[in-house]
């Protein structure tokens, strides 16, 4: 039998202090994965509240309760925390938990470095947030912290720099860990082309982190030096240039956004096949698309700088349009996977389908700006805000929720409530579109981004109000999600090993897995070892059909 035998419960529960110490010092990738998820969702709540604050202020023209000074700090911290302390670490957390399981390994290649990578995160995140109690307030330069403005700002900016240096170091160490684990620790029979597609997405993300994140590390050091050591890298006086900051930032910044989406593509590419009952159509095509996008992402950065008048427009325009080609291939592959399948609309599948529908819009939005002449009209407006929320929320957050509902039983041994999940999904879908679709109109009507307030005679009032209503609907959907998680965690651990009739190795062990992951592995003869084993009758049917 390939399924691991269930463990007997201990007679007396562990003393509380010993359990806490265990969590603080663990090097087990599964516990570290859970720590990542808990940390990420904590910051999601903080940054989410910030979003509600901003939308409350912007619902109507005129300053209601958030001064310009406060608003500028809030939008800076919202963006920074969402990107670096929520989205990326959640994907890393899923990777930590599931990459070793999916490749049939015992743990990550460097378990102690893995623990270090995690603990740097809450320290870095708290450093960034601590700006709110610093003299002069939190960082207020936007998550992009353009020079020379960022050189004028107060102590909060230094805390922002320090926090990001820690978070960046953590992600680079983590990425090295993932790459070595994937290349060196796959179980016998698992060639690279039989590896789960989620592992490929983690590999591609990790390559991006290793090559792009150090660039922003250098930039942050230069920014700090300009602020405190008298250097002039980014100030126009004495030979420096604000454009240098933008080049350094966006050379990192564009690969960064792919770091935020690749693993979500991986999750969706796992879930769609399972709930269609068919293999992923064109596994090779997905791998090729991932690798092409990874490589091309280094060639597009200056499309963020079209309006500076200082970059080579045709080159970056064509590379930007080209990167949409492999991205489009992914859509066709997903559609072809669904085609003639037997679709089961469990909650993970709903979120995965929502991902496809929403990410399409975000992706198209982006290509709109790839033509520089068009970009001159909508750059730095709410069109851009709409675009990146469609790809990061409509895309990655829907993908994350898909992953949560899919893998929750494996991690905790309990199935999330389907009923609450449906409420969560529909409210999130409606709320999300109500919040961000109007921003397309606002952008076309000329509303710039990052403004704490707007005049009442610009024609922007209705769209802003709709957007705010949508934001609170999202908030409600998240409350329902939180209730679902809390109620479910109180239930006993009854989830089967394979509730969804999955394909990949994590479903070949108990829910949750034992500390050593597997008692025995099924034979690995394809990219779907658990599907094969189920077909051959060598593993018990899961309860998920």
């Amino acid at each position, binding site marked *: 039998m390939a399924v691991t035998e269930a463990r007997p419960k201990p007679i007396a529960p562990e003393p509380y202090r010993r359990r806490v110490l265990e969590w603080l010092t663990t090097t087990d990738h599964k516990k570290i994965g859970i720590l990542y998820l808990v940390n990420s969702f904590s910051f999601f709540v903080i940054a989410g509240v910030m979003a509600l604050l901003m939308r409350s202020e912007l619902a109507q023209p005129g300053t209601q309760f958030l001064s310009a000074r406060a608003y500028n700090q809030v939008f800076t911290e919202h963006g920074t925390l969402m990107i670096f302390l929520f989205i990326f670490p959640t994907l890393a957390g899923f990777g930590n938990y599931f990459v070793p399981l999916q490749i049939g390994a015992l743990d990550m290649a460097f378990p102690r470095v893995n623990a270090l990578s995690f603990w740097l995160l809450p320290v870095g995140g708290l450093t960034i947030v601590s700006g709110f109690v610093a003299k002069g307030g939190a960082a207020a330069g936007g998550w992009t912290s353009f020079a020379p403005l960022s050189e004028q700002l107060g102590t909060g900016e230094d805390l922002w720099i320090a926090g990001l240096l820690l978070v960046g170091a953590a992600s680079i160490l983590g990425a090295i860990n993932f790459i070595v684990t994937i290349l060196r620790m796959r179980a016998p029979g698992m060639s690279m082309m039989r590896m789960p597609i989620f592992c490929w997405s983690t590999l591609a993300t990790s390559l991006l982190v290793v*090559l792009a994140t150090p660039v922003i590390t250098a930039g942050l050091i230069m920014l700090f030096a300009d602020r405190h050591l008298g250097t002039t890298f980014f100030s126009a006086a004495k030979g420096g240039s604000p454009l240098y900051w933008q080049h350094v930032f966006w050379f990192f910044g564009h690969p960064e956004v792919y770091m935020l989406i690749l693993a979500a593509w991986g999750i969706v590419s796992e879930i769609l096949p399972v709930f269609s009952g068919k293999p992923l159509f064109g596994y090779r095509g997905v791998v090729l698309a991932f690798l092409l996008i990874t490589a091309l992402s280094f060639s597009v950065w200056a499309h963020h700088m079209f309006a500076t008048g200082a970059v080579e427009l045709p080159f970056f325009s064509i590379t930007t349009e080209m990167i949409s080609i492999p991205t489009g291939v992914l859509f066709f592959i997903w559609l072809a996977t669904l085609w003639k399948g037997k679709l089961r609309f469990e909650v993970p599948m709903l979120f995965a389908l929502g991902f496809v529908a929403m990410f399409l819009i975000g992706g198209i939005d982006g290509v709109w700006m790839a033509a520089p002449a068009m970009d001159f009209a909508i750059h730095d407006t709410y069109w851009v805000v709409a675009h990146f929320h469609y790809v990061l929320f409509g895309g990655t957050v829907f993908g994350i929720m898909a992953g949560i509902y899919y893998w929750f039983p494996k991690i905790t041994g309990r199935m999330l409530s389907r009923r609450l999940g449906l409420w969560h999904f529909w409210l999130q879908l409606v709320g999300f579109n109500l919040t961000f679709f109007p921003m397309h109109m606002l952008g076309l009507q000329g509303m710039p981004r990052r403004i704490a307030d707007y005049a009442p005679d610009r024609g922007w009032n209705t769209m802003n109000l709709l957007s705010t209503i949508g934001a609170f609907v999202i908030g409600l959907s998240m409350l329902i999600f939180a209730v679902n998680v809390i109620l479910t965690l109180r239930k006993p651990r009854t989830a089967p090993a394979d509730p969804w009739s999955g394909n990949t190795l994590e479903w070949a062990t108990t829910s949750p897995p034992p500390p050593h992951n597997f008692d025995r592995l099924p034979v690995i003869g394809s990219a779907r070892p658990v599907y094969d084993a189920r077909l051959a009758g060598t593993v018990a049917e899961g309860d998920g059909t």
Partner: protein
Amino acid sequence: MSTAEMASDERAVRGTSSPVLGMVLFVASEAMFFAAFFAIYAMSYSSQPSWPPKDVTVPSIGVPSVMTGLIVASSFFLQLGVRAIRRGDGRRLSLWLATTLFLGAAFTALQLYGYSQIEFGIREGIYASLFYIMTGVALAHVAGGVVFLLLVLVRSATGHLTMVRHESAEAAAIYWHFVVVVSVALYVAFYLLASVHPKGP
């Protein structure tokens, strides 16, 4: 042995071990880190009418040349040590490690001496900014390499490294060679270029 060590044993026989692969990736990230600074250097070079700028007195090339020669030599000696441990000769490795460390220390001392001789301060424009930050950061990396090599020397001197298991020596060597390459690149950018082929009238 831990599970990670077991896994790495399995693959060490037929390819790069995990610690060495990890170090290669780390060095790749460090290369991108330095590349960012060099990119700013290149952009400044192309937008300034003269390089080094008119008001900058470039230090004489003597001390930097000696310094760079020493650290390049240290790479050769270190590699001799690595080849020694691949034959199982821990004693030779310790000898060559000590030599490398000595040369690294000499490099550091000369760099610090060099700083005291420089006529421009850090606040004097883009050239000064690049010079001090890039050489300073590189020196920090040399210091890190020295610490790493010292740890390996301790393990080697106490007999822990064998012909089959000496990944820390391999990894440290890769890191040190990288640091040497960066030192050479900085030598070219800030000393050789200024003396041999400065830009401008």
